[in-house]
């Protein structure tokens, strides 16, 4: 049981966004993906989901991405959501369950409630999604990614727009999910998740480095990644980045 990527190259209009990526991730693990803006992190996730054309081969538990969609839960970068649509929180979480059936079944509602409870948003069941704060919306979308009970979770910057408290709560949830799911998570600041990260991918147009936290997070690698010196401290053989979020 693993997720394998061989010689993955992605072009947009003939411009290379991601070149020759090779990784193999055993199930279950938590994989943190880091890299500067425009490095190709989202592009990598979208190829795992089969959302964009790519060269090379991707196997998710032996299946092609398009065939593996029912195994994956996805939390997109928040700017891809259309807030013109006045959906309620419950409707948002129910979408993946009911979009393929004609009626809303009792079990759909139960699952939606279960996962909203899990992210601590059940009391907002009847509220409008666009009336929530950015961090609250993020949690609801996290519940939506979980509601189909997927084996693989793909989370694109889930901590953007979250305050410290929400961030720590989400980290706690990831701790609880780790061990049963394989989680790919794009982060600009790995510090809150350092203890439960199995693997780190550094992406800058290609895979700069892949391995455990202590193998990958070295001052040399980070300088190569961001093109500037990154202040960090070392503790228990793990490097922590000082100054937190590298998002400009």
């Amino acid at each position, binding site marked *: 049981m693993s997720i394998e990527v061989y010689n993955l190259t992605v072009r947009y209009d003939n411009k290379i966004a991601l070149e020759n990526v090779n990784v193999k991730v055993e199930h279950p693990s938590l994989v943190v993906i880091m890299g500067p803006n425009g490095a190709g992190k989202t592009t990598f996730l979208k190829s795992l989901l*089969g959302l964009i054309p790519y060269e090379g081969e991707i196997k998710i538990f032996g299946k092609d991405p398009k065939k593996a*969609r029912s195994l994956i839960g996805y939390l997109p970068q928040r700017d891809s959501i*259309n807030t013109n649509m*006045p959906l309620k929180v419950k409707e948002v979480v129910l*979408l993946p369950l009911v979009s393929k059936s004609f009626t809303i079944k009792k079990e759909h509602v139960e699952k939606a409630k279960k996962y909203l409870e899990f992210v601590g948003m059940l009391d907002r069941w009847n509220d409008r999604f666009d009336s929530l704060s950015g961090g609250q919306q993020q949690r609801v979308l996290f519940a939506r990614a979980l509601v189909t009970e997927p084996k693989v979770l793909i989370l694109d910057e889930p901590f953007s727009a979250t305050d410290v408290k929400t961030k720590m709560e989400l980290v706690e949830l990831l701790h609880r999910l780790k061990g049963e799911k394989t989680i790919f998570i794009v982060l600009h600041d790995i510090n809150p998740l350092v203890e439960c990260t199995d693997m780190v991918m550094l992406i800058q147009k290609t895979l700069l480095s892949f391995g455990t936290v202590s193998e990958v997070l070295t001052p040399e690698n980070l300088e190569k990644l961001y093109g500037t010196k990154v202040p960090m401290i070392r503790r228990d053989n793990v490097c922590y980045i000082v100054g937190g979020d590298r998002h400009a």
Partner: protein
Amino acid sequence: MLDILVIRGIIAVFLISIVSATVGSFSVFRGSTFFVSGIAHGALAGAALGIFLTLALFPIDPLLMAMIFSVFFALAIGYATSRREDVDVAVGVMFAFSMSLAVLFLSMLREYASIAWGLLIGDLLLLSQEDLTILVVSVITIVLIFLIFYRKIMYSIFDPESAEASGLHVMWYDTLMFILIAVGVVALLKCVGAILVYALLIVPAAASRRMFPSVSGTIVGAFVITLISGLGGIYLSYYLAVAPSSLAGLIAAAIYAVSLFRRR
């Protein structure tokens, strides 16, 4: 006794309200309201060509040509945006192109151009039995498609990437939405005219979303607001002797203005 034309007008308003509640609301959700107005002018160009062909060569229903043109324009705009063109620019170009065609065909019509004027302005109180039949068929089509694909269309509009990632063919539902808009626009063409399609298709839904901010609330509200505007327009036109569609448009705009003052 109510005149048969008035009865047809009232039935038409009821049907238009259904179009506005479905196609109108989802256009507002999708943020493609300018698109609607672009398609209306594409339909006008098609109708003008239909009239020209009928007079010069062979008989063809102008509304059929309008339908062909607006579906074609809708798909062309859809194609341009899938190639990462900004949707406003794509619509703007199509708008200019279809108005140029419309003026071209109208000028070829010469003394008969007044027939096409009817489609620019429309008239709720001059509908033929055939116009009404076209309206009924369009409405049934639209409602059936929405009943079947309601949630899939909703998911594709709200979060296209996740919808795609969960296995929906978003492109397909986008195209379907474009075609529904085209059908809705043509259905309204004879009743309110290309200029005022926007007033009865978009304005009620926009007002309704402000007043009843939920998906079902917007849909029901758009239906009611369109009904009030349309019936009010017909009623007032009795006394004022002006085009009912203009009055309907004014009532809808007034309701929108009121919705602006409401606290969200």
